[in-house]
């Protein structure tokens, strides 16, 4: 078997395939149908300081090769997560990365502190890129100064692996990537969803209650590959690729673009065994091509020599 284990800074993962935030619950839901040994990590649904009810219905709608969602970060809050869910989740034997969300820097810090104090998780992923909430989220991720501030503040209270999840809505991806790296992030993950809109032409109502929702799924993939490529060229910390990955070939494409590992989101809905099949498929790809380890192909894209835009 080819070696598909990966290292993200000091964090060693048995597989490059993680389940993406918001698409895998808190990790317990797929136990009957998925071999968890194939998972690199589980990234939890976003956790906030206080419980959040989430947005009104409709919250999801199918679009060509994708979907829009506006869940509004419904979650039971960090206390309930730490007290009720984490004891079950840590028994799964898979590294847990907690997706952390706040409306203010202070909230991000307090959630991160509580996660740090459990001693039971491998890392935190800063959700500075949720498009479906009024305050926080994308407001941090789209602005390099604010991203630097929140990342630095969280860095000061945790020595867990600190992953910063980028938004495709940041104007200059290099700028936010650099800001996160300089503030002490251990890795970047890219990308979160981008805001989209779908309208029922009979009723003229948006198909999502909050009018716009985050686009995910295969429709997002080329945008995500580009952003991973750009981000990985501008920082020296590892980048985790996310966006429309549903097969091993999709994952390999991200890795060649510059991702050291990947997260699988929407594909968990359409194929509950997606993560497992993708991990197996990556191993087969490497074996068939006599590539000893995955890291050999990270960022190996061979761009055309005169690729710069004229």
């Amino acid at each position, binding site marked *: 078997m080819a070696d598909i284990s990966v290292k993200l800074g000091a964090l060693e993962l048995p597989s490059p395939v993680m389940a993406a935030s918001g*698409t895998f619950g808190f990790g317990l839901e797929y136990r*009957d149908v998925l071999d968890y040994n194939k998972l690199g990590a589980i990234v939890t649904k976003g956790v906030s300081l206080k419980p959040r*009810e*989430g947005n009104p*219905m409709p919250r999801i709608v199918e679009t060509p090769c994708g979907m829009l969602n506006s*869940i509004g970060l419904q979650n039971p809050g960090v206390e309930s997560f730490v007290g009720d869910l984490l004891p079950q989740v840590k028994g799964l034997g898979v590294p847990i990365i907690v997706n952390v969300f706040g409306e203010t820097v202070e909230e991000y810090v307090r959630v991160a502190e509580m996660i740090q104090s459990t001693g039971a998780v491998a890392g935190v992923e800063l959700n500075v890129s949720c498009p479906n909430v009024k305050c926080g989220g994308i407001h941090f991720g789209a602005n390099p100064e604010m991203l630097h501030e929140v990342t630095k503040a969280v860095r000061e209270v945790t020595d867990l692996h600190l992953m910063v999840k980028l938004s495709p809505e940041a104007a200059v991806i290099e700028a936010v990537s650099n800001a996160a790296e300089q503030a002490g992030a251990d890795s970047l993950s890219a990308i979160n969803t981008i805001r989209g809109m779908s309208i029922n032409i009979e009723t003229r109502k948006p198909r999502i209650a909050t009018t716009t929702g985050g686009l995910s799924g295969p429709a997002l993939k080329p945008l995500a590959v580009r952003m991973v490529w750009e981000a990985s060229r501008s920082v020296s910390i590892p980048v985790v690729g996310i966006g429309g990955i549903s097969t091993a070939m999709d994952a390999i494409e991200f890795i060649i673009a510059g991702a050291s590992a990947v997260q699988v989101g929407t594909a968990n809905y*359409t*194929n*509950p065994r997606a993560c497992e099949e993708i991990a197996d498929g990556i191993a087969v790809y490497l074996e068939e091509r006599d590539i000893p380890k995955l890291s050999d192909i990270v960022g190996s894209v061979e761009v055309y020599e005169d690729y710069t835009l004229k």
Partner: protein
Amino acid sequence: MGVVLEASEIVKNYEISNGFYILEVFSPDIARSSAPGQFIMINLSHLHNDPLLPRAYSMARRTTETLVFIYRVVGRGTGLLSEKRPGDRVHVWGPLGNGFTITDRKAVLIGGGTGAAPLIDLSEEMSRRGMDHTLVCGGRTAGDLKFMDEFSDVVKYSAYTEDGSLGEKGFVTDYISNGNVGAEAAIYSCGPMGMLRRVSELAAEKGAECQISIETPMACGLGTCLGCAVPKRNSKGYYKACTDGPVFDSKEVVI
């Protein structure tokens, strides 16, 4: 047994009338471990990405080896489904959801359109248990209820059609308002949202118990996407239709 995920073979898939289809898939494990009112997810485009999301279908019958469904072609998903042939495989996972809770009360089963499906299964289960019960199904016209003939060996029902072409003329909810249902009854219902709203109102008026099976958008069926939220009536927040439902006490939800 938990949730089973498999590529199941289609045994039968044919149109009955007016775009209503019967689908039968081979899935002994799900058939054996499921109960009336539960559902499965069917992914019609495994790895093809369009249409992306799986679709939810409630079992109308569970034989020892197969699951039988009733669906109506209304969009792209069901259009694709209708083109599948016996021998084709579809990715399915289930059984999902809670299903109906059978109580001792006088049972009245009220179905609208393809919403009859889980009630056929429930009626069969009640007969198996020797429970007296009434099944009432409604449609626009006789052709919309033709699928019921496929189950006539095990379930008896009364029909309501809007044009009077079969059974009583009117809406299926007329069965409740016409004095057939009182406080001693337990109503079990599935159908379009408007119908379920009316059933819930009438049940409250009559003081009858009422369980309704709700269709919401769903992406996963497993409790992870949070796309299937149903507002709670008595407190803040939402239930998940896929894991807390799809069957709810009508007094506990806002629909």
